């Protein structure tokens, strides 16, 4: 019996090491895989994706809320920083959150922190050269070149939907030129 245990133990330990290594590899790779899949579904980066009211046919985001209006900007700042702007509505909950390639939420603001709803950000990697941040913009550093900016507006009163949707449509994102001006479009 003892001899059998001694013969088997190294193999059992090896199996355990393989199991833990595989588990850790999957755990470490999973967030980037999920974000990559989401970004691929959303399409080209650095422009705002117009999202109509989500319904049963909507597939870009998992578990979307039918009671939120979304504005989504997949970003890639490897070539240039990104200017982000919006005029969010008063009187309802809204938020803007930025997620890196590992799905980490590295930055967020909401209606409590920005009561007037005026949003101006410049998103960049640390050390990114040739950047002049426009006056009034908040500089935000992203841990990764790629990720996603997500605006959410709560529809607390369906009678107010037109106003809330108009606010959603003010959300913009576009590469920042070296002069500090935004490129047109987006």
């Amino acid at each position, binding site marked *: 019996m003892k001899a059998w245990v001694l013969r088997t133990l190294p193999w059992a330990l090896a199996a355990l090491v393989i199991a833990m290594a595989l588990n850790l590899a999957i755990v470490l790779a999973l967030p980037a895989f999920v974000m990559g899949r989401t970004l691929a579904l959303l399409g080209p980066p650095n422009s705002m994706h117009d999202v109509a009211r989500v*319904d049963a046919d*909507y597939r870009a985001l998992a578990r979307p809320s039918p009671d939120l209006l979304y504005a989504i900007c997949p970003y890639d700042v490897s070539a240039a920083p990104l200017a982000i702007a919006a005029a969010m509505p008063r009187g309802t909950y809204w938020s803007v959150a930025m997620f890196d390639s590992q799905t980490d939420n590295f930055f967020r603001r909401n209606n409590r922190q920005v009561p007037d709803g005026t949003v101006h950000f410049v998103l960049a990697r640390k050390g990114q050269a040739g950047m002049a941040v426009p006056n009034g913009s908040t500089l935000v550093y992203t841990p990764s070149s790629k990720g996603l900016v997500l605006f959410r507006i709560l529809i607390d009163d369906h009678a107010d939907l037109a106003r809330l949707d108009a606010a959603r449509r003010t959300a913009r994102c576009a590469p920042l030129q070296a002069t500090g001006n935004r490129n047109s479009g987006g």
Partner: protein
Amino acid sequence: MMQFLRKALLTLVVGIILGLALTWFTVMRGTFGTVTDGPWRTSATLDHHNANPFERATTAWHRLFARNTDATVTYTAGHDSGGQALDGNCIYRITGHEPDAQWWTMTAYGPDGYLIKNKRGLYSVSKASVARRRNGTIVITAAHQRAPGNWIAVGTSHFSLTMRLYEPAPGVVADPANALMPVITRVVCP
């Protein structure tokens, strides 16, 4: 030599199976780093970008873009209060007090994590739309067929419910496991 190779191959296979089982247990089950309030599950901690790898992976897989903050707390239930998986072939009654928040919504999702198609295009019940009892409590029916009163449409397979609390009370943020979430009761199954 052949015996060594056979043992090595067996060890590799066992290791892979164990590794996948570990991954299911730590990530795919969706319970890592969460707390429960009856059948409702939520993240145990507020959003932060210093999550450990297991928390990050679980959130990415189950609650992408939906980490709790002091402004929003999200609960999800895939089972009723008796512990049985939610089945769209059954009828459920969701009862209790409204969550302590400025605003809340309850939404049903199919097994694929997306909204469930229904003729009326109704996907959720909210603080604004819910009809309350005289004592202030709520009763919501989750069923495939239209039900009187508050009704959430579900499909004919497994479904889950998500409650989103906006501007929750500080007590909910501090202790999400004791938010007194509604009870989910299976009324009848075919």
